[in-house]
């Protein structure tokens, strides 16, 4: 543990505020003129879906705490109510920027490039209006459920995250204003193309079609006004695990019930009728700070649909095809290649296929005795699942740990877990009280000279779909020491006792944090002895107090620390005497930065590790995670190269400043360098090199078949 002085709250940033900065950086990509237009749409859409998840998980948690009277300050010394107050302010700012980006930059440019999004039905010309109305009658009307509110009909339950249209009505024969609402059906596409001639493509949003046709829903009424709105509740979601333990204790203590179903955000169209807003506000019991008046279409995730519209390829980033891995040529015997030496994989620059093939080959190989794997988030229709099922059918012992607690895709997981069980796999449905986040596969093979274990360890999930979008590293090895550890990991996951000692792997929640603290502490010690000390760490989030304090202590001792943290970073840079030697950068690019790589100088005997864990309390304390060393000379060089390239990046990297903001680097006079692009380039070159050496290494002549 670091000295107490390094724990002072003023040295820390609230994790929620830091997360907002991350969403801001994504938004920055949407605002970047150098990026193809449709990619910018995608980034904007991501900021919106990110924010939704943030509300459902984080804001809901904070609300729960306040309801429970839980006032424990966070690492930055902020109480839940202080956090909410500040967050509300910042989120409003973020939303304003989102929509100014959409309105001022993206929409006009889309139009200039031949795509018009009609967001106000009043703008429709006659012909289009007729089409839209017909579309309404044929497709929309049958699925609508308009609901009016009066003394006999109470305010209906508005579904979480749903888009609705609220209206004020007046009976045609006079009377009071009445409130009515109708949900925009989620079963229909939200973007409706309007057929037309010429080069301009037009689309209209579904809610506009409904709004335009409101009178058809309330026949005897006169529609005074109609506006879309959207709410978010904390109902369906459990408290985020990071606070859960303390919080649940507190709730028990106070015997207060959590207020289920409470609305925590209301988004309405800007310029909404004041009376209508008042009714919504009252019925949903919302404070003004939780109401967002939106200047544009609600729920910008719709832009992902727009991205998918065909015919604008020139406005999208060219698709990158993951490259073959030079060590694993097509059709090779993977086991044989692994026996030649460890193989490091870098996705998505290199293809994920070898990992799938690893399991496929194992499933068919008569010498393979057992396959064991942890699965966290798997793609639908996963080839890995199919291979595992086949292995079980082929009589191999297949053990699969399926994590059902993976947020948001529980249902999906249960379906294929049942399928695996049917095929004869031994399925473990997670561990009580712990999420299994580690990514490890073990193949036990009986060979001439005895049992040999092949292991794949990774930083990313066994998901062939996300492997094309997330940057991750993986290691294929048959090192005996790692094999023993891998066996021990699965024995532990099966409920057996831990091994006496670990050879190479460090496993959370029991040992990993100490391992990191030890590695950081060792650098501190070296720095104090006047030796060169350097840490480079790449991860998604950094918010563990003990780790940060240890980093401060290291920095104070003179250790140079370079952090590449994509998302949340609760650490502050440039505090005199505390963190002057720490530099933090965040890379937000086309691919989602997801790999966790750790470099420790260790007095010129540098050590490199990869793993599944971020430096977050939940990763280090409440999940099963694995950190593995990469020890081959070549593989270490590759990892260090990845880190160095990312530290060199001046296009996609933002630098954390002393004031807590993130700034892109000033590139004037410098060659711009985009690490993700450069990795793509390198992967392609390596694949070409490998292909050509293979040809030249071949002993057969290749006759030309035509005269050039």
């Amino acid at each position: 543990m670091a000295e107490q002085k390094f724990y002072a709250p003023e040295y820390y940033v609230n994790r929620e505020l830091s997360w907002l900065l991350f969403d801001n950086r994504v938004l920055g990509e949407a605002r970047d003129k150098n990026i193809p237009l449709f990619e910018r749409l995608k980034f904007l859409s991501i900021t919106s879906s990110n924010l939704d998840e943030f509300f459902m998980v984080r804001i809901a948690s904070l609300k729960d705490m306040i309801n429970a009277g839980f006032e424990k300050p966070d690492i930055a010394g902020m109480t839940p109510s202080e956090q909410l107050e500040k967050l509300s302010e910042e989120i409003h700012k973020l939303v304003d920027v989102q929509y100014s980006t959409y309105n001022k930059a993206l929409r006009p440019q889309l139009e200039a490039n031949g795509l018009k999004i009609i967001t106000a039905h009043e703008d429709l010309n006659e012909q289009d209006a007729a089409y839209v109305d017909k579309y309404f009658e044929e497709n929309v009307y049958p699925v609508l459920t308009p609901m009016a509110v009066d003394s006999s009909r109470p305010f209906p339950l508005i579904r979480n995250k749903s888009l609705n249209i609220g209206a004020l009505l007046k009976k045609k024969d006079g009377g009071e204003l009445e409130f009515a609402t109708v949900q925009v059906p989620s079963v229909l596409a939200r973007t409706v193309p309007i057929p037309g001639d010429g080069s301009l493509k037009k689309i209209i949003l579904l809610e506009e079609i409904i709004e335009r046709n409101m009178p058809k829903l309330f026949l005897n009424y006169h529609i005074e006004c109609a506006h879309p709105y959207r709410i978010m509740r904390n109902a369906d979601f459990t408290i985020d695990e990071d606070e859960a333990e303390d919080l649940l204790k507190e709730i028990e203590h106070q015997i207060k019930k959590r207020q289920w179903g409470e609305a925590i955000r209301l988004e309405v169209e800007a310029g909404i009728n004041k009376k209508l807003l008042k009714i919504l506000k009252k019925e949903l019991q919302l404070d003004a700070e939780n109401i967002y008046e939106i200047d544009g279409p609600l729920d910008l995730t719709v832009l992902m649909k727009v991205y998918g519209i065909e015919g604008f390829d020139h406005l999208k980033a060219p698709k990158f095809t993951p490259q073959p891995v030079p060590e694993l040529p097509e059709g090779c015997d993977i086991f044989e290649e692994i026996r030649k030496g460890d193989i490091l994989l870098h996705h998505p620059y290199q293809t994920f296929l070898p990992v799938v093939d690893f399991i496929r080959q194992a499933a068919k190989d008569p010498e393979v005795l057992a396959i064991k794997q942890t699965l966290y988030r798997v793609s639908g229709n996963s080839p890995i699942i199919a291979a595992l099922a086949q292995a079980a059918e082929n009589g191999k012992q297949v053990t699969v740990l399926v994590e059902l607690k993976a947020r948001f895709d529980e249902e999906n997981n249960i379906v294929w877990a049942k399928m695996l069980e049917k095929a004869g796999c031994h399925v473990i449905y997670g561990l009580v009280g712990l999420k299994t986040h580690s990514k490890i596969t073990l193949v036990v093979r009986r060979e001439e000279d005895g049992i040999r274990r092949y292991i794949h360890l990774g930083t990313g999930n066994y998901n062939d779909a996300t492997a094309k979008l997330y940057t991750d590293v993986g290691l294929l090895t048959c090192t005996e020491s790692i094999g023993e550890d891998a066996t021990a990991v699965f024995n532990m996951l099966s409920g057996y006792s831990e091994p006496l000692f670990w050879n190479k792997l460090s496993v959370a929640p029991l040992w990993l944090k100490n391992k990191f603290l030890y590695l950081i502490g060792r650098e501190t010690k070296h720095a104090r002895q006047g030796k060169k000390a350097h840490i480079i760490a790449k991860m998604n989030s950094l918010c563990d107090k003990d780790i940060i304090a240890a980093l401060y202590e290291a920095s104070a001792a003179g250790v140079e620390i370079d952090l590449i943290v994509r998302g949340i970073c609760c650490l502050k840079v440039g505090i005199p005497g505390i963190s002057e030697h720490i530099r933090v950068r965040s890379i937000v690019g086309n691919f989602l930065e997801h790999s966790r790589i750790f470099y420790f100088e260790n007095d010129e005997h540098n050590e490199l590790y990869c793993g599944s864990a971020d430096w977050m309390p939940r990763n280090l304390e409440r999940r099963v995670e694995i950190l593995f060393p990469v020890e081959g000379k070549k593989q270490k060089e590759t990892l260090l190269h990845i880190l160095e390239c990312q530290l060199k990046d001046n296009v996609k990297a933002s630098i954390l400043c002393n004031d807590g903001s993130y700034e892109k680097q000033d590139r004037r006079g410098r060659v711009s360098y985009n690490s993700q692009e450069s990795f793509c380039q390198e992967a392609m070159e390596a694949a070409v090199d490998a292909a050509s050496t293979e040809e030249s290494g071949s002993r057969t002549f290749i006759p030309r078949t035509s005269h050039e």
Partner: protein
Amino acid sequence: MKTFAAIDIGSFESAMKIFEFSAKTGMKEIDCIKHSLDLGSDTYAKGKISRDKMDDLCHTLKEFADIMKAYKVEDYQAYGTSAIREMENSTIVLDQIEQRTGIKLSVLSNSEQRFLDYKSIASKGDAFQKIIEEKTAVLDIGGGSIQVSLFDNDTLVSTQNLRLGVLRIQEYLNYVHPRNSQYEALVEEIAMAQLATYKKIYLKDKEIKNVIVMDDYLAPWVVKASRMKGSGVIAGIASDGSVTPAGLEKLLNYLKTHSASQLADKMDIAEEKVILVYISAVLTQRIAGMMGAERIRFPGVTLCDGIAYEFAEKHKLLKNVHDFEQDIIACAININKRYMGSRKRSENIDHIATTIFDSMKKLHGLGKRERLFLRIAAILQDCGRFISLTNIGENSYNIIMATEMIGLSHAERETVASVVRFNHGNFDYRGQMGSENKTVNRSSAELDKGSYLTVAKLTAILRLANSLDRSHKQKLEGLKSVLKENTLVLTTDTMEDVTLERRYFESGTDFFREVFGVQPVLKQKKNF
């Protein structure tokens, strides 16, 4: 290449290790599966296993069976130790386990278990062989008792069981509720009373160089500390898991000056286990101190290693195995010495008896193990003289039954003791009837049919051998034994007068004939 599974159902933990044997790499552990399962508290308190525990045990064993299947294990050996041994209904339990899981579980007696522990150290190979060339003590610390075995020059000199188990001591401490500062003194007091006697009788002024410690408390942690970089708890633990007396002192001091929760955290063990580690450390330190050891070694092996080693030994899968039989013989010789038996005579009888045994292989159909029994019986046949010159048979029987011999199970010891008894007295035929008259004649009644016949055959051979040394003067040198049709011709080239021997020989042949249907004939071939 052979794969083997060793299963150990202990009082607090059930464990299985998978091994691979090959000419190239020898014995290699592939997997180790451990499951915490407290059978001990049921057995020790109620004498029976509860239904839940039984289900848990069967479930675990079934999983073990599945794992064995996955590894395509060719052979296995499953042993239960004291928790199973001390169950009142162990036979029923064992049968049920086999019915439910398909795993055949055998029960180890204390001495067999200790022998396997000792074999597990031997499984460490050359390192072990080298250590025991010097004067070495093996300290096997269990829950109920500790076993101290002394080695000199490659062979076992003595082995003794002391009721100083870690759990036993802890129970006693719980009873008196000592303050933390009193612990060490109390453990010392409890231990030293027994250790002083031990020192007086067995240790005398032997100087022990090495102490090898086997336990489930201190050793795993020392091994772990020696293997893990950066655990940073104690300096002075060498990478081979050994410490100097000073290092041990330091370690003990460390345990003394930290709270249980601190230690649990630092040592990465459960808090309730800390006190056991502490007791084990105090015992180790005191015993090593008493012996004046220069190095205390923790090989970090478990019973499973011993089981595998035994299997490999039996199937000749390893080169250069330690000769354990020699250890057992050495042990018997030492017991004989303690009871003032004549070494020369016992050597002589041993020689004659084995000569006869070997020449009759075809006839008696007994194996290597029975030959070992015969040798032990020959060596110990007169130990009862120490108590009284009359009733030697009974006295010897009682001494042998009361003396633990490492490597012999209770039943095997019974065989040896019975042979010695009938060597002196009349043969008891009632044994063949089964359990009749159990209280009157416990010994033979408890022998099963196979053992009964073994006892009869060995007794016949030993009696014959004895009659050839009636004068106790080792007259019959260069004895040769040849089986010819219906006679066993024993030829000696001694120049001495063998009248007495011939006389006794004739009377001793009756029983021999009865058992084997062969007439022994003694011939003296004088070479002038």
